[in-house]
């Protein structure tokens, strides 16, 4: 781990606690909206003027609680990434999903979206969680370049014998800055990356 480990741990610990509070807040909002929805259902025959508005509003709450849940999980994983048991290895399957969740906003600001294809089994790699998140996030940032309209950044995983691979495919028509790859490459101590002009493949050594 680098010399900023202490700072990263501090930030992680404080963020994790805050995320725990956020989770309780979301849980209360979700259950309260759920109860209102239940009551509307129980009284389905009782008509009142603003019933459709109320039902629509409850739908919005539910949709955005779900959205918040994803962000909460991702931020919580980020916060726990400097934990002792995450320093030298992690599950690439989980953390690649976290990369996609965390980079959604960044990519949307560039007029694109992130498509992540999950894999069913864990992919243990001999790289710490924080490092995987940095590499993944910077790769998505690199892939989206200076922006595109209606494009998709694809994040995919390929299980392997010696290396598990994270693939980042930039939106069509976007030519990412080749120099930015050096920054990502520097983060890969025991891994490597390949850019074939169409997709970036990042090789993470398998945890034996």
């Amino acid at each position, binding site marked *: 781990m680098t010399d900023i480990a202490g700072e990263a741990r501090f930030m992680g610990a404080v963020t994790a606690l805050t995320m725990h509070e956020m989770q309780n807040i979301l849980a*209360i909002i979700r*259950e309260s909206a*759920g109860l209102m929805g*239940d009551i509307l259902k129980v009284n389905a025959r009782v008509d009142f003027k603003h019933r459709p508005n109320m039902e629509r509003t409850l739908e919005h709450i539910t949709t955005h609680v779900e959205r918040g849940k994803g962000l909460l*999980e*991702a931020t919580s994983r980020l916060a*726990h990434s400097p934990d002792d048991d995450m320093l030298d290895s992690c599950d690439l399957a989980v953390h690649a999903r976290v990369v996609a969740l965390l980079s959604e906003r960044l990519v949307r600001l560039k007029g694109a979206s992130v498509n992540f294809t999950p894999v069913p089994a864990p992919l243990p790699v001999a790289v710490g969680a924080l490092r995987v998140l940095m590499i993944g996030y910077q790769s998505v940032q690199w892939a989206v370049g200076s922006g595109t309209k209606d494009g998709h950044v694809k994040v995919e995983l390929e299980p392997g014998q010696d290396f598990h691979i994270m693939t980042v495919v930039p939106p069509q028509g976007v030519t990412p800055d080749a120099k930015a790859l050096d920054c990502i490459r520097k983060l890969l101590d025991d891994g490597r990356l390949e850019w074939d002009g169409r997709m970036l493949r990042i090789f993470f050594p398998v945890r034996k």
Partner: protein
Amino acid sequence: MDMSTWNILLVDDEVEFITTLAERLELRGINARVTHDGESALKEVAVNEPQVIVLDVMMPGMKGLEVLQRVKEAHPKVQVVLLTGQGKTRDGIEGMQHGAFAYLMKPLDLEELIHTLKDALQSGRGNRHD
């Protein structure tokens, strides 16, 4: 299964969350008692042993995992479903190692909770992980 006969105890220090959850269960014909900390939960279990406890892991005072262990020592037949934070699977896994039936992440999906309660009641023992 007749849900009105279920004996459920909900334990969470977030009062608005857990009382609203109890109300939603009640609307579905499930009676659930509520306590807000580990000590009260243990007292409640001693007086009226529930079939299933839904237990928050992170509470002030006695933590959920300690409550789980004490319940399992004194009342091994009681099934415990843990509530953990998003992305905190470690707590859930540790809980499973201490005999929890399942763990669910907050915010909850009510239908998933009811499904888990049903499974917990049907299986006298044996663990399940969501």
